[in-house]
């Protein structure tokens, strides 16, 4: 086994173990920290695949943005130290069975499928990503880029409006 393979197995086990702990931990703050480790593992997987730009975006947006936002909202809505209620036995049994069988189904399909076509990966520089992003010819990505910018603006205004403290109305 090569060194690269060992690194892959380490990263994969980090992602899966901390993901599993994130959805099963009874303390919500610990659950958020396990989620953070899982996201870091995914970023490490992108580094392993040599997609450095995606890995950097993953760290900046997920680890630096989303997980911090989740931790802040936990502080706003929970008393630290109180445990989450245990899910009922029936619900966790059936959810576990459903997930397990769905996983086995998908995995059997993937196992049986033959993947082919290995063009060498072209040069993946930030330069090329930026040019493709603003390319308005056939196959360019300028339209989704603009739509996402509108979406982010709408989400920002929407968040402010929803979470704004309204004056107590007499009724």
């Amino acid at each position, binding site marked *: 086994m090569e060194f*690269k*393979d060992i690194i*892959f197995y380490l990263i994969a086990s980090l*992602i*899966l173990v901390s*993901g599993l702990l*994130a*959805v*099963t931990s009874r303390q*919500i703050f610990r*659950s*958020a920290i396990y*989620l953070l480790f899982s*996201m870091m593992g*995914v970023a490490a*997987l992108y580094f392993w*695949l040599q*997609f450095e730009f*995606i890995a950097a*975006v993953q760290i900046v*947006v*997920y680890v630096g943005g*989303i997980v911090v*936002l*989740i931790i802040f*909202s936990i502080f*706003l*809505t929970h008393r630290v130290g109180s445990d*989450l209620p245990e*899910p009922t036995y029936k*619900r*966790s049994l059936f*959810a*576990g069975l*459903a*997930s*397990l069988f*769905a996983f086995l189904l998908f*995995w059997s399909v*993937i196992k049986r499928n033959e*993947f*082919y076509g*290995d*063009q*060498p*990966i*072209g040069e993946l520089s930030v330069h*090329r*990503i930026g040019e*493709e992003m603003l390319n308005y010819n056939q*196959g360019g990505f300028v339209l*989704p880029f603009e739509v*996402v910018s509108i*979406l*982010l603006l709408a*989400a920002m205004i929407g*968040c*402010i409006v*929803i*979470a704004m403290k309204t004056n107590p109305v007499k009724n």
Partner: protein
Amino acid sequence: MEIGLPHLLFVSTALFFIGAYGFLTRRNMITMLMAVELMLNAVNINFVAFNKYLWGGKLDGVFFTIFIIAIAAAETAVAIAIIIHIYRDHSNIDVEDADSLKF
């Protein structure tokens, strides 16, 4: 056996169904949101892996991943705004208790 596409697909499929399990068992809105984030990450791994191993000449998978990350950030921000608003009204964020729109 050399690490290839099936290994990455194993990781992403397992992560997706871990997220699905969390979404089905949790009843707290923030933890359900965390489970959804895990599922979105699994999808991103899939896109990047297919781009790397099967579609090397182009960057379509990378762009899908970037747009999914942007939309996931917007989705999380809106969801947390809604959760905080619900917490102000109901003073807890259990999905079973948020039933004031029920007819």
